[in-house]
Every structure is written in C-alpha cells, then in structure tokens.
C-alpha cells in the first residue's frame, strides 16, 4: 500500500481542489444573486417633474405612468413632502435647510415595478419611456452600475462553469491514472488472482471501492477547506456591508450532498475508465 499512498494522496488532493474551485464559484453565485435580488427589489424609478407643471395635471400624469406595462404602483411625492423627508433625514444639519429661501426640490413620482419584470433591459426601457413624457425633467433609477455588475456576474458564472467542468474532467483523468498505477503495481497479484479462478468482478470490486473512497475523501476534504475559508472570510468582511439586510450563507445540506455525490461519481468514473482499458488488455 505504501507505494500507492502518494498517488492516492494526489488523487484526493486533485478531487478536493476541483471541489473547492467549482464550489467556491457556486457559493459566490448563490450569495451574489442574493445580493442582486435584494437590490433589485429595492429598485425604485424616480421621475422628477418640471417646476411649471400645474397641480391639476398630476393625476393625469400619474395615470399615464400607471398605464405603462410593468408598472406596479406610482406614488406622487410633492415637493413639500420631499422637503419634509429631507429635513427628517438631515435632522442634525437641519439649520442648513432653514437658510434656504425656497424649497429647491421638484415634484416627483416614485415608480415601483412588477417584480417579474425587473431585468435590466426592462428597467432601462421603462425609464426611457417615462423620460419621453414631456412634463418629466429627469428620470433616475440609481444603481445604474448594477446592470454592469450583473453582466460581470454573468461572465463569472460562465467562467465558473467552464473551470468547474475542466477541473472535473482533470480529476477523472487523474483518478483514472491513479487506478492505472495501482493496477500496474498490483499486476502480478491480479494475474495470480485470475489464474486461481477469480472473475473480473471479484478483481474489480476492490478497485471500485478504492475509487469511491478517493472521491468521497476528496469531496469531504474539499468541503471542509471551503467551509473553513468561508467562515474566516465572512468573519473578516465588514459587517457594515451586509448589516442585517442579508446573511452570507454556505451551502445547504442538499447542495453539499450533491457536491459529495459528484466527487464520488468522479472517483467511480476514473476507476471505470481505467478498468475498462485494463481488463480489455489483459
């Protein structure tokens, strides 16, 4: 066994590495999509009116906006109301506002979108339609960079899938190679087993068990390393970023089971490929 412990260790480490790399991408997606959906939920489109829009025009405008597809709700915020809100928000520095001769804020509509239509294209589309209403001076939907951010996430996702696939394939070949080395080092033993009447199945079963154990150990070690890394990274992240709004989370036990099962499958597949070749040859 001693001779094989090095190649076994290499297999376990490779499987563990591919689990770590693939899983950390998955972990990243899970948490970023949490953040994104949270931010998207908070997306409010603000439409600011020109100062000379008469008050009686407001209900009509409100209806026009409400009539646009994908708008869930439109709330009118008068300039006075906006000023009060601002005052409240600037309690400590409210003296700054007292020096103002007149309220500088415009009337505005706060537009809430239907949850299902909150893709970036649709948000942009809606914003430009509202912008085209002549009484609207400016449309703001903040977090414009979020759109870019979700593109980047998309790219990450793709490279994550690719890397994950690449590493899984590499693991399969490394396990296959390990099994081949083990088979090679035990070829005399296998030949003897054949000569005394052992069936292919009898000879192969221990190798399959070994492959499955390699896969399981790799999976478990990978998940443990990932968990430790996750805990140390999240405890170092400034709580301010994530405060209360949401919690960074690790995999659910179901996802962990899937990851473990996949790494066992990789171990089994490596074994299968190698045994198929060897038994044909002998």
């Amino acid at each position, binding site marked *: 066994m001693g001779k094989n412990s090095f190649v076994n260790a290499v297999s376990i480490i490779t499987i563990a590495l591919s689990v770590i790399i693939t899983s950390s991408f998955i972990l990243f997606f899970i948490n970023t999509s949490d953040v994104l959906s949270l931010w998207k939920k908070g997306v409010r489109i603000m439409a600011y009116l020109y100062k000379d829009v008469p008050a009686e025009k407001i209900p009509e405008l409100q209806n026009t906006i409400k009539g646009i597809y994908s708008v869930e709700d439109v709330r009118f915020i008068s300039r006075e109301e906006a000023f009060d809100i601002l005052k409240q928000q600037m309690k400590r520095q409210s003296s700054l506002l007292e020096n103002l001769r007149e309220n500088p804020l415009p009337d505005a509509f706060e537009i809430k979108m239907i949850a299902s239509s909150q893709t970036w294209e649709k948000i942009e589309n809606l914003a430009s339609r509202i912008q085209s209403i002549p009484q609207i001076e400016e449309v703001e939907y903040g977090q414009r960079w979020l759109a870019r951010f979700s593109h980047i996430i998309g790219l990450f996702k793709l490279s994550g899938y690719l890397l994950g696939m690449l590493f899984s394939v590499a693991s399969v070949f490394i396990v296959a190679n390990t099994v081949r080395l083990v088979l090679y080092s035990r070829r005399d033993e296998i030949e003897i087993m054949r*000569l*005394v*009447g052992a069936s*292919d199945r*009898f000879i192969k079963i221990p190798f399959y068990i070994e492959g499955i154990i390699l896969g399981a150990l790799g999976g478990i070690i990978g998940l443990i390393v990932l968990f430790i890394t996750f805990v140390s990274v999240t405890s170092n992240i400034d709580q301010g970023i994530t405060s209360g709004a949401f919690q960074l989370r690790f995999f659910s036990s179901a996802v962990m089971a899937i990851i473990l099962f996949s790494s066992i499958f990789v171990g089994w597949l490596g074994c299968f490929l190698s045994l198929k070749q060897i038994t044909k040859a002998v």
Partner: protein
Amino acid sequence: MNDNDENSLIRMFHVYRRYGSKAALFDINLEVFKNEFVFITGPSGAGKSTLLKLLYLGEPASEGQIVVDGINLSRISRSRIPLLRRKIGIIFQDFKLIHSKTVFENVALVLEAAGKPQTFVKKKAGSVLRAVGMEDKQNSFPLYLSGGEQQRVAIARAVAGDPTIILADEPTGSLDAESADQITGLLKEFHIRGSTVIVATHDKEFIRKSGGRTIYLKQGRINTSPA
C-alpha cells in the same frame, strides 16, 4: 461413447501454438484420463510450460481443439474462463504467491474467488494448510518462508478448491533435494486421493520416484520415447 471417452479428462487434437512465425508446439495430440499421473518432460524450450498454459488458457492455442473436462477451450466465453480455472489447481516453479497477503490469505483467496462462504473458507484453508504441514505458518508472509515452504503453500492453494486437475510447472525446479522430495510426496498423495496430476518437469529423479505415464516433448513435438 465408450469407456475411454467417459474416463477422458483432457484431449488435445492437432494443437499448434505459434508466436509470430515461430512455433512452440506442433500438431499435439494428447489424451489424459481421470486420476492419471502424467509427466511432460523434455529439454528446456521443448514447449512443456506452453503446453500447460494452453490447458488453463494462460495462452490460447493457435490451431486445433482442446477439451478440458467437457469444456471446449476454443469456444469458451471470457466470462466462463474463471469457471474453467476453478477446475484446475496450478503450481508454478516460481510459486506465484501474493506477497502482500499472509499464507492463510493466499490459500483463502481461491475459495473467496469461487464465492464460498467465510466459515467454509476458514475451515477449508485451515485443513489444506494442515495437509501440507504449513498450519503453523499460516500468519506468515510468503517472503519470510523458504522455497520449499512457499511451494507447499502453493500446493495448498492449488488443492484448496478441490480441483479436478492439478497442473504443476517445474514444481521442484528451484528447490533443494529434500524440499523436492516433500513436494513429490504431496503430489503423489493428492493423486492417491483422486486428483489427476500433470507435471511438467525435466527432473528425471522426480519422474523415477513417482512412476506415472511420461510424455516426451522435443522442439514442440511429442516423441514416443526419450530422444
């Protein structure tokens, strides 16, 4: 079917074995009967080992038909080869013991491979090791044993599965005279108990002491008498 057919255990009809353009065996016709003790002898390179290999399908015949205990070897499927080999106990000059397994495990392997239950494996392996006088060393590893002891373990392994045929390829070839005598005695004993034994050897003393039928091979052909 006459009496001869019923008693026939191994038959070879016009068997050839070639390696590329070189032939190791030419037109071998041979019949071995149940409970026979047969020697195959001849100089080195005469094809003795090759002939034995053909019987347990260590190698396939290039031409001709071989029937072993009713099984036609040219038609046997890959999955049935283990079943053939369980009918044959093989003893090699170099013992072919598994060094990472103990004496007991080496013998038990044959029975485990045949799917025998653990309680039977324990009992049977113990009893064959007792029969060859290796019971005391059943927990030793082969490399700690002398050549004679290793060969006795190999014999225990060969007979553990109660094979119909025992094939021995130069079983005394690498042993001193005393160990060779012990091995000869054991093979004779298993023959008396009912096994068919085929021994490939060039050990004339072994043949003289055992007194079975002798087949002479020379340059891959059967000779009727020593040349």
